[in-house]
């Protein structure tokens, strides 16, 4: 039983993680806008503020003191930014980006209050504070252009006032929208209005109007700033909400009736003051985060349903020849088939849910790109294609580290400094492309840079120097062979080859990780032009759920799709029919096959405590006698080498970790061998 508090804690961590990811994504957008010199969308800053604010709220509730402290300091900083007290600059961006790292570390702490973290947190907070407050350069108050009633100004929040000024300064036209709202549903309507407001329209505030309205409705005057013309705006809002007119300069904004000045005005900026941890409840996400174990559970339920289906099948078979029920049995059979079809859809659907877009990894990589580029004073443009390409969740998780390494490599060693690029007549800004696409049942991911490329001969010389390659062997290498040397252990971590040391993980580790996923990695590089690393992975098929069993102290994996159930093995219940061993299961005869004997490990199994794993294929069933059930696991099947391809009964092998390899049983082959084999069920000679 899990402690409910653990669950709550888990929920917190998941939500916090989501917030940090959102923060990271938004910061990248901010960074990009800043570097392109584009106008910074205030909604983006609000979004960042909101993430940090919510994080602060929930961290407080769950005793994540350091997270709360950092979030609080950041919130102050972001508030200054929001209110235009400072502008987006490099220092600010750096500090903000650091927060992602800090949050991620603080969220993984064993003890969220750990005093050891105190110093680091305080240091970071000092850094946040030192970004300081830059006063906005005032070039005359733009509000002076409009004759605004001081009463209005007093009800504008500081944020609204700032936005009003900023919008006028940016040359946006002010509009007044009059609309009446039902008092009962005013919150929803306003939310809807905000959603309607496009990029080019900003809602500054809204004020209750004096006119119109009755007991059930209220008329509001909404102050809009827009980049679009009056006609366009009317087309967008007019019909729906009421009248719109432009506010000419030097005209009066709607004035407030004096008796209303004390009414708390519904704030139009995101209401951040009092929503505590609830902001996220409102977030309109079109996706949900699901614990993969829940999907596994669903998959198991599908398995159970398949059992129900086969039970129905058996009943149908039993009554098939009974004329009394002929019609009913036929109906049942038809219904059963329909059920089976839906079931297979369900199975496909669940598999589909496990698929996640590679964009999840690419987002993380974007941050690495930025960080690495800054570390090396390089200019790098990241171009991503195919971020929506989907891969099994498990593969995506395992893919992050290798891809991160490839991206770092491309920037550390591939893309040159702006000066070097200029000398080579390339644009100062290097390009790093991440491309993903499907090819057959594989997904291909390319990491491509337009940097300096790899020096194949230097790699070869290094390999020889390090004794990884004999001199004579090195003479016969093609250029491609030389490039492939980069995957040799002990080569790519070298500081000389890569001009960069201390990372500790080399290309050999990348290759190992990719191979472990059942994938392939290849490299293409032209000196002076760039390098392209191509990773090819199975979309999902290589990963199967397997029942891990032990037979004569050896471990085997049995694909779960072939397993119906497992029951205790009772030697006394075994009978033989023409030499074949059978047991009786729920009134039916079940043939059994002792794997230890089948594989030639021993002659007979008369031990207690063994199990019969009932496998089913089509309408055949066969019980495999095993010594122990170890558990279920997702395993990655790798094929056995060519030289073992003639050995029957094994679909491949899988690495269970700690270099322990388990063979994966080939259930269809074992069934065929048992039922159809020319010399069916022939035990091999027993090994000593």
């Amino acid at each position: 039983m899990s402690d409910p508090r653990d669950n709550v804690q888990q929920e917190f961590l998941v939500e916090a993680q989501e917030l940090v990811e959102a923060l990271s994504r938004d910061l990248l957008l901010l960074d990009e806008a800043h570097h392109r010199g584009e106008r910074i969308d205030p909604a983006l800053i609000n979004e960042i503020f909101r993430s940090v604010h919510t994080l602060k709220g929930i961290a407080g509730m769950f005793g994540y003191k350091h997270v709360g402290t950092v979030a609080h300091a950041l919130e102050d900083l972001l508030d200054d930014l929001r209110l235009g007290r400072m502008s987006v600059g490099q220092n600010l961006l750096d500090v903000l980006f650091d927060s992602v790292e800090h949050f991620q570390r603080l969220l993984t702490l064993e003890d969220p209050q750990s005093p050891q973290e105190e110093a680091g947190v305080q240091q970071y907070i000092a850094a946040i504070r030192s970004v300081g407050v830059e006063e906005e350069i005032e070039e005359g108050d733009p509000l002076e252009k409009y004759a605004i009633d001081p009463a209005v100004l007093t009800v504008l929040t500081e944020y609204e006032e700032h936005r009003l000024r900023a919008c006028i300064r940016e040359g946006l036209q002010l509009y007044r929208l009059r609309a009446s709202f039902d008092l009962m549903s005013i919150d929803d309507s306003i939310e809807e209005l905000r959603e309607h407001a496009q990029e080019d329209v900003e809602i500054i505030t809204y004020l209750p109007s004096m006119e119109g309205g009755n007991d059930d409705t209220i008329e509001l005057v909404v102050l809009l700033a827009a980049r679009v013309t009056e006609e366009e705006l009317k087309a967008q809002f007019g019909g729906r909400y009421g009248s719109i007119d432009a506010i000419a300069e030097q005209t009066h904004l709607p004035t407030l009736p004096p008796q209303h000045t004390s009414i708390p005005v519904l704030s139009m900026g995101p209401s951040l003051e009092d929503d505590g941890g609830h902001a996220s409840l409102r977030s309109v996400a079109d996706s949900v985060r699901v614990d993969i174990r829940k999907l596994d559970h669903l998959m198991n339920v599908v398995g159970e349903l398949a059992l129900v289906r086969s039970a129905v099948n058996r009943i149908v078979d039993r009554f098939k020849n009974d004329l009394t029920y002929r019609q009913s049995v036929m109906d049942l059979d038809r219904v059963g088939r329909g059920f089976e079809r839906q079931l297979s859809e369900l199975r496909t659907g669940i598999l589909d849910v496990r698929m996640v877009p590679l964009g999840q990894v690419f987002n993380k990589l974007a941050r690495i790109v930025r960080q690495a580029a800054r570390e090396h004073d390089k200019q790098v443009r990241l171009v991503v294609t195919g971020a929506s390409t989907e891969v099994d969740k498990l593969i995506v998780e395992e893919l992050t580290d290798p891809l991160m390494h490839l991206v770092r490599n491309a920037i550390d060693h591939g893309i040159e400094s702006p000066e070097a690029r200029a000398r080579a007549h390339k644009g100062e800004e290097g390009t790093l492309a991440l491309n993903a696409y499907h090819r057959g049942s594989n997904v291909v991911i390319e990491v491509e840079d337009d940097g300096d490329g790899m020096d194949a001969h230097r790699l070869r010389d290094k390999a020889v120097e390090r004794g990884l390659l004999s001199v004579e062997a090195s003479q016969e290498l093609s250029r491609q062979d030389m490039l492939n040397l980069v995957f040799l252990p002990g080569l790519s971590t070298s500081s000389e080859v890569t001009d960069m040391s201390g990372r500790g993980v080399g290309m050999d580790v990348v290759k190992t990780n990719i191979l472990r996923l059942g994938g392939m990695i290849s490299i293409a590089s032209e000196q002076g032009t760039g390098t392209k690393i191509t990773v090819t992975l199975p979309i999902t098929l290589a990963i199967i759920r397997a029942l891990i069993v032990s037979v004569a102290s050896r471990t085997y994996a049995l694909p779960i799709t072939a397993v119906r159930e497992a029951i205790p093995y009772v030697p006394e219940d075994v009978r033989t029919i023409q030499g074949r061993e059978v047991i009786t299961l729920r009134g039916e005869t079940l043939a059994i096959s002792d794997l230890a004997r089948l594989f030639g490990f021993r002659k007979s199994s008369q031990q207690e405590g063994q199990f019969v794993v009932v496998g089913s294929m089509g309408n055949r069933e066969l019980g495999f006698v095993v010594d122990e059930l170890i558990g279920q696991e997702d395993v990655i099947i790798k094929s056995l080498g060519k030289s073992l391809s003639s050995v029957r009964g094994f679909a491949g092998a899988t690495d269970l970790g700690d270099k322990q390899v388990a063979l994966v049983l080939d259930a269809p082959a074992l069934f065929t061998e048992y039922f159809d084999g020319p010399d069916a069920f022939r035990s091999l000679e027993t090994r000593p």
Partner: protein
Amino acid sequence: MSAGQKATLAPEPDSETGAVAVLAVLAGNEAYGIPLGSVREILAPPPMTEVPRAADHFLGVISVRGEIITVIDLPKLLNLEVVHDGTYGRVLLVDNGQELIGMAVDRVIQVYRLEPEQIEYASAMGADLSDYVIGVGRVQGETTGKSDDILILIDPVSLLGGIA
């Protein structure tokens, strides 16, 4: 293709005399020389997973950095007397032209540089030797403790190429 051609040894390029480098290993009671160029790696034996129903000379499979490698038992493959108790000193990763094969040997002795006059090719020996035997190398050293000893030079591609 004559026996002499099929299994020539690539001389070391920096050698003026045409010397070749071979890795000497002990299998059973015999010393074998394997061209150094075809040995990718020498491993301390990792945990072995036996493959039931495979031919006797297959020891099993191992995982090398996530890759599943088939391991053969060199003494058994060569029908030599098995002198050990089922444990092996080293596993060499050898390219057989199709895949990497693990070759379990009792012991790795050392690398020898054989001058042409130390090599006697099978084709010149006239004896009825297996295809994979390139010839013999005469070395002085501690292979089997005798002062003048022979290394049986073998070609991994023809020994392991079509193995099943």
